[in-house]
């Protein structure tokens, strides 16, 4: 490692002090990959200064899943987490996930059956964070693999990365609270854009703002729309991925909340397989509105792209109980629509955002 980028310490401080607010005696589980070394070292030192324990779970794949193991273990074992890991999941006080891949296409090929079992085994690990029983944050560390995915040299990628993360999150939070209040009052959201005209109901649902808490970068507010409300078509033009496979140019047709038609310009097989994963995979679990002005272009990273100001995202699959969602699925896949060139958002018939710019809110 070379000289440590001063921004790494600031980034770590944000995660430990703001996102988690680590307290004395806590056991903070850190899932990470080897390339995140500089950040892990900062996190370790800061957690120590807060009189708490880091539980580092570093592996080449992201703990608790291990594709090399899941590809060869007996099927009855693949679906089950090691009891020792299960205990850790049930007793940790907070969790940080640091994605720092050395190859974003290095995901081993698994049969659909084994991949589904592997996800089932990992589910207990996420139970307490999805339910918001403990503080958690998901983030990344800038690696060459992520820079390559974004189509940039590492140094430029790092600038972009830290611009998106090292923000005045209190100010961002206040600005997003004003927007979410306007959405909370409304019943009906309409999203109009290129090959897109989709209506969703938010009646009785409240939104939540992420101002640097559960995701870093934060910069979105989100709802779980009424499960049977989605009607219309949407063209999700921001390229994405699923389990390491690229998927782009997704077109979905919704009737009564349910995906009735689906196609993709790339990765259609992955899209259709995801929709067939379970009952809930064809329903919208989340409508999110990206508000992070530090993110101005997609970089094939859902964590960042879904926060891009002037975009919205729809997640197929599991909704968030904390915002009133009731859809259950093993899938939660955020698909992103760019509204900056010829799109708008309407609330109960009033245009509130035009070409990615807020109006009359």
């Amino acid at each position, binding site marked *: 490692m070379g000289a440590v980028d001063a921004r790494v310490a600031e980034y770590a401080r944000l995660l430990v002090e703001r996102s988690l607010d680590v307290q004395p005696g806590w056991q903070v589980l850190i899932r990470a990959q*080897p390339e995140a070394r500089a950040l892990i070292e900062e996190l370790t030192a800061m957690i120590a200064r807060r009189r708490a324990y880091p539980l580092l779970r570093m592996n*080449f794949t992201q703990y608790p899943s291990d594709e090399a*193991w899941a590809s060869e*273990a007996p099927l009855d074992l693949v679906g089950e987490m090691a009891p020792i*890991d299960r205990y850790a999941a049930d007793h940790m006080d907070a969790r940080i996930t640091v994605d720092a891949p050395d190859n974003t296409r290095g995901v081993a090929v698994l049969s659909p059956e084994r991949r589904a079992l592997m996800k089932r085994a990992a589910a207990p690990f996420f139970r307490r964070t999805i339910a918001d029983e403990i503080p958690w944050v998901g983030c990344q560390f800038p690696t060459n693999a992520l820079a390559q995915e974004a189509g940039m040299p590492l140094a430029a990628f790092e600038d972009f990365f830290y611009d998106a993360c090292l923000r005045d999150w209190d100010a961002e939070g206040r600005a997003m609270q004003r927007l979410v209040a306007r959405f909370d009052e409304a019943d009906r959201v309409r999203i109009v854009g290129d090959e897109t005209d989709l209506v969703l109901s938010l009646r009785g649902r409240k939104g939540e703002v992420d101002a640097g808490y559960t995701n870093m970068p934060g910069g979105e507010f989100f709802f779980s729309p009424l499960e049977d409300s989605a009607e219309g078509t949407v063209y999700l033009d921001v390229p994405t991925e699923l389990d390491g496979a690229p998927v782009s140019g997704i077109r979905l047709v919704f009737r009564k909340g349910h995906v009735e038609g689906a196609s993709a310009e790339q990765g259609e097989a992955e899209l259709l397989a995801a929709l067939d994963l379970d009952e809930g995979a064809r329903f919208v679990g989340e409508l999110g509105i990206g508000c992070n002005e530090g993110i101005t272009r997609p970089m094939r990273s859902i964590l960042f792209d879904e926060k891009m100001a002037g975009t919205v995202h729809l997640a197929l699959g599991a909704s968030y109980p904390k915002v009133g969602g009731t859809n259950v699925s093993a899938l939660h896949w955020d698909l992103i629509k760019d509204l900056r060139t010829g799109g708008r958002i309407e609330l109960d018939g009033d245009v509130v955002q035009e070409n990615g710019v807020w109006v009359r809110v």
Partner: protein
Amino acid sequence: MGAVLDPRVEEYARLLVERSLAVQPGWQVMIVATPSSRPLVEELVRQLARAGAWPLVRLSYVDQEQVPFDSLWATEAPEELLGTMAPIEARTREELDAWLLIFGSENTRGATVLSAQRRQKLRQAYVPFNQRRLAPGFPWVGCLYPTEALAQEAGMTLADYADFVYGACLLDWERERERMSGYAERFDAGETVRIVGGGTDLTLSIVGRSGLVDDAHYNVPGGEFFYSPVEDSAEGVIEFSEFPAVYQGAICEGVRLRFEAGKVVDASARANEDYLIGALDTDEGARRLGELGIGCNPGIQRHTRNTLFDEKIDGTVHLALGAGLAFVGGLNQSAVHWDMVKDLRRGGRIELDGVVVQQDGAWAL
């Protein structure tokens, strides 16, 4: 990482999983390793999968840590926290079924420097698991994956070092077991061991103690048999003049120890004496011997500044200061277990109850 897997890695992993640990279905096997050991870690994970066992992979960058980033954490955490492990980490070590440690440093000088006081406290946190691990019947193994840093420490190219490592590890271990068992039986029948060599005349009692042969069960490479000598028996002087004494990344040259009634009463070193004295002062047991080992690995003829290999050099003996080995009747308690290797190949001998059994590193049995 290299795309082509050295075929010896698969054989090496099989030795660890099938012979050293004899992994059973349903076991939870902790693998402590560095990112540099990736090919071996991934092969182990695949073989554990086939054995129906769960791997608990714990990567860190530094070799000497049982808990990743422990030293870094311990430099910053309040001192009163250091003596006990995080409850989840402690419980993990109470429940795991087998433990596998892979040395695979990317920089053998990369350990965080802790003050002696903090280092000592941190070692206390390791004591409960070390006691469990060293009790009879617990499956564990320490091994090594060849990295550039370890090759550099040995003064070799990586290719030559890898040949050296696999040459020492991939032996016919059943044959080695039979050969070493013959020596160990002779020692088991003896009472007093005398080690004579350059600057050295030391006697130890092994009365009532039985030796254990490491035929690739506790260490890979194996290739030693060892005792926990009677705790108050060591008398005399030993000089580790041929090789440096290496412990947790620190190197002490020319260590000389004088024992009375089992205890080090005088210690000196040509270089890094402070570290030696600090280790001896860690706790009550650090001045007593926990182990006498006799190196027998025919694949190891040279010193590579790595205890795992150096203590198995054919024609050497090693003495460990500190923790005794409960599984061979050792009683000494300490957070330290520091193996120091004495070369007997040029002008040294081992006597058993007055009879020379090894002269200049060659067995006379």
